[in-house]
């Protein structure tokens, strides 16, 4: 799975927009959208919001979690806790990127939010690396991690799996000749 696919999934998230056009309900496979009344907030998926925004057909209202105070709180929490705290949104990274890249004029304090989300992301990825490291060094057979987002899993998956495979191969080749103790140092 590559990041663009995860982003694609994130585009199904719902955001509120304020359209500046008038349109009846539109009927799509994924469900009905609208009706669109100029000046009245309406909930649409991110992909539509961005599409409309690019054509200057709407103003996007940032999701409630995309707020400096709330994100600061999440960041502090994330730094304090050793385990993963629940993310502000299951697609927080993707949504931040999408919305800030395309609609930063509709989001107050866009720069601060970008920094905060990056901080949260970095903290979480660091935790993820750390847990992967301890997972390998303790030679555990399984581990459980809660509150990971799809994007986070996706960033670490290919590398982790490949390296585990690789190590397995190395270890099984090594096993006959060496003692069990030496297998630990790689």
């Amino acid at each position, binding site marked *: 799975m590559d990041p663009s696919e995860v982003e694609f999934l994130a585009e199904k998230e719902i955001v*509120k927009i304020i359209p500046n056009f008038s349109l009846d309900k539109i009927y799509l*496979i994924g469900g*009905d959208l609208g009706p669109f009344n*100029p000046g009245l907030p309406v909930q649409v998926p991110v992909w539509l919001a961005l599409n409309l925004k690019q054509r200057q*057909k709407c103003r996007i209202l940032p999701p409630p979690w995309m707020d400096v105070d709330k994100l600061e709180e999440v960041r502090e929490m994330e730094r304090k806790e050793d385990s993963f705290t629940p993310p502000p949104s299951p697609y927080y990274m993707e949504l931040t990127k999408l919305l800030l890249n395309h609609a930063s004029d509709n989001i107050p304090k866009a720069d601060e939010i970008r920094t905060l989300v990056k901080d949260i992301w970095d903290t979480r990825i660091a935790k993820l690396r750390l847990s992967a490291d301890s997972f390998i060094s303790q030679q555990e057979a399984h581990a459980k991690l809660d509150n990971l987002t799809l994007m986070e899993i996706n960033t670490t998956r290919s590398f982790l799996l490949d390296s585990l495979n690789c190590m397995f191969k190395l270890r099984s080749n090594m096993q006959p000749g060496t003692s069990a103790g030496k297998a630990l140092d790689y």
Partner: protein
Amino acid sequence: MPCERKPMRYGHSEGHTDVTFDDSGKFIVTCGSDGDVRIWESLDDDDPRSINVGDKAYSLALKKGKLVTAGSNNTVQIHSFPDGDPDGILTRFTTNATHVAFNHSGSRVAAGSSDFMVKVVEVSDSSQQKTLRGHDAPVLSVTFDPKDEFLASASCDGSVVVWKIDEQTKVTSWPVLQKSNDVSNAKSLCRLAWQPKTAKLLAVPVGTTVHLYERDSWEHVGTLSDDMITQPINVVAWSPCGQFLAAGSVGGFLTVWNAESKLCVERQKHEKGYTVCGMAWHPSGSQMAYTDTEGCLGLLDALPTSSANALMKTHKAPVVKAANDYDDLFDEDDDRVMDEGLSDTHSPAKHPVVGGDDDDDDDDLMPATGRVKNRGSFLDDENSLDTGSLKLGQEKYRDEDDAGSTIAPPTGSSLLPRPVYDGPLPTPPQKPFQPGSTPSHLTHRFMTWNSVGIVRGYNDEQDNAVDVEFHDTAVHHAMHLTNALGHTLADLSQEAVLLACPATDELASKLQCLHFSSWDANKEWIVDLPEGEDVRAVCLGQGWAAAATSTLTLRLFSIGGVQKELFSLPGHVVSMAAHGEQLLIVYHRGTGFDGEQALGVQLLQLGRRKRQVIHGEPLPLSFKSHLSWLGFTAEGTPCYVDSEGSVRMLNRSLGNTWTPVCNTRETCKGKSDYFWVVGVHENPQQLRCIPCKGSRYPPTLPRPAVAILPFKLPLCQTTTEKGQMEEQYWRSMVLQNHYGFLSSSGYEIDGEGQNQAQKEQQELLMKMFALSCKLEREFRCMELAELMTQNVVTLAIRYASRSRRMALAQRLSELAMEKANQLQEEEEEQEESEGAGGHLNSRPHQARQEEHREEEVEDAQEMETLETDGENRKRQSRCLNPFARGAGGSPEKPSPKPISKEGRVNPFKVLGSGKSPSSSGQSRITNVLDSMTSARRPAPLGGSSGKQNKGPILKPLAPKPKTKTQSTLLQMATSKAANKKAQVNTEPAVDRLKQPEVPPPDSPVDNSENKKPRTGFQLWLEENRKSIVADSPDLPETDVIREAMGRFRSLSAEDRLSWTERAKGQSVDPADLKKRKRAEEVGEVDSENAQKEADENIAKKKRSLDSTAKLSAFAFNKN
């Protein structure tokens, strides 16, 4: 009264504060719980100097450039003044010091502490300390004898002790105070004060009175009290002359007595009623500063002084004469009362009173708890109204005063009666405002926000501009105008922007209109108003503009700038709103009293037949509120909101009364949160408003988002099921009034929505009926039944008989008969009147009949197609590919409508609504999103294609015959419900409108097909089709037939047989025969249809048809 209370201002954060003047009287110095000492040059000093002295400062004293503070770090510190440099620590305690005081010369400082000790320290040498021990609880306050011999202290142990400083011994002690365990728990701070100069008296606040003790004898020589003081006195302070004693109490009462006469010369009430905890006289004695526990600083100015006193003595008589009549009257009264009460007519206390009565009797001291003004100015919230001088509750106090003054004053502390006006006070009239605007004093403000767009005004250093933005960019692109004329009023419509500015010294008041929808090149016009006339309110209707001016004139203009009618208003305008051809004006009907506004309302119809709909009737407002929004719903019903958040709507069906439909305050989370209304829609029921946290109106940035509130009629007991349904019913009734209005004034109405609403109402009635039935309230059942339409009554009869309420069913059937007769009569009348209408009317009537026939034929056609290809694919049709349908129109329906109209149907579209795509009247292009990129559509008012179904439905139609049922009894019986009737009739109406040129569908082919023998099912379907469609309006054509088959099958064998027989006996002309048959079968058909409905709506379970025979006995039979 003479003194002037300056407005309070914030000095410190909430908590204990203290205040003093410096020696020169140039600075006010305060300290507070934020640990800062602030030096104010005056009360208006916006940038006081701050000296930080610790975490908290409990008390301060200032003399000779030394600032002594008692802080939270258990020390008493010195700072230099006014520089604020720390000058060391004077003394330390084991806990914090509570009060510090200088002696008269400034050489010594006394400090009382929570560790029960009082210390007296030489300022020059802090090692020279004297400790006074003897209190058994924290010391509340200390004060020096001006002669430096004694020191008095009050403590939480309830005692006030006088010490001899040099000997460090107790001289005397009075256990007069209430005991407590800590300063924070003490009822009163008990700040003592020793009379300056003579040093004769020591003032001790005891409860709500002040005790005066004489020096040396230490006798209690007098008590100062005032009836107004109801809570313990916190602080007392002597005026520098030693003649007056001021006291400040819990609850914010400020009182000044003349110590000699023990008369109260001054009363003031803290403007917010906060506890006064610090007080200081200006060295000149003319001002007094005070602080409260909320950190605010206040100032009383123009206090009586001894010099003024002397002056007054000589000039007493002239002053009294000089006072105006009103005051004079009361002054004399005063004198008389005082003369009665006191033998000493030359009591000095009287003079300041008289002297002070010169002007603003209005603005004086009186207690005004919760005065609207203060709240208003605090929130800075009122764009329209300076509620300022709504002096609520003032009269009560005055009454008390009066009562007090007539009784002989007890113990010599007399109350001064003051000039009193006893009646209700006039409310200042509300200022004019534009609906949806924020106050004009703001630099960035909304000049108007309505359903069309937003006009924002900027007026700061770099820019004076007006921004116009449209919600729907299809109306017009956003505009940025420089506001050279200084416009303050704006309105916005689909056609134009109207701006207006008040007159200046050089320029007359102007009205500027940007008529952007004009088709010529000149899109702007400006009109100058006559000199001395100011625009107060403007509004834009459809094709016209109106401006109300300061000369009580209302001027109408055409949208192109032609001056039209003008008329005089009965009062000063408050606000105006327009919608289509309607103009709604709210004006001041008169003077309101006690916080009420007296507003009147006029509603005018400015179309071709101009008339006044509401003739200046009083506008109902909530208690003590003012108008805060005025406008129309998108559907054109007048509507307004008052400052208490109550939304009222005109109820045209109840003699143009105003019905409260919503209270926005109920939905607010916080007490100071408000909803700022920007629009009201009746269909769908929406109140569009902007939630404002802690204010009445939103800021322009960040851009506020609109929220939607539902309507809720304030009916009783809406928590119960009954109350809920009643509320729903009446809400639906009130909010569907606009259909009647729109159709009567020739606008296109959303028939679909109306039917929906009516259906909902009938359903609710039926539910309420069922509920009352369950509760055995048969009388109530009857009452409900009277509200029902005739066919729902039939259902009710069934329900009643099924639940074995035969008496009720009997009555209901009588009612049904009555209703049927009524209906019939009405229709006959209508027919007659139409017949009498002559030539003009006869055509539409004919057309209608034709139309009806047309429709029947259409039905028959459908049957035929079903016959031919439907028979053999009865079952297959179930798994028909839904995508196949859209491709070539509906195969089941070779309708007269051209296929092209449907356009390319969106294959994904769920047929959610009852209307088939063709009847929706909307030509949608497949990819709606793509279509939006196309250039903006020409937008006649509200008529852009996207808006046909919603939004402001303002689409005048060419006069068309009203669609009405064919007025025969037969018709009534067959097409069941009123709503069904309407549906049946509106659909052809729509069709006809769309394509009047389409030839009548009875083509030869159809006719030949009609002649084919028909099956019983077909006949049955013909009869019941409408009821099926009405029951489940969202079924597509195939499903309707399928459903019909299902139902037909569920009929009993006999019934089916009878239908088949009927079919066989049918002649070649089905249309004629059908009618005849209908006449014969009315009763039966009726009962069967009703049975169907009952099955669907109520029982929702299959019952054997045999029971219907029994039940139908109660169904009325027309024959």
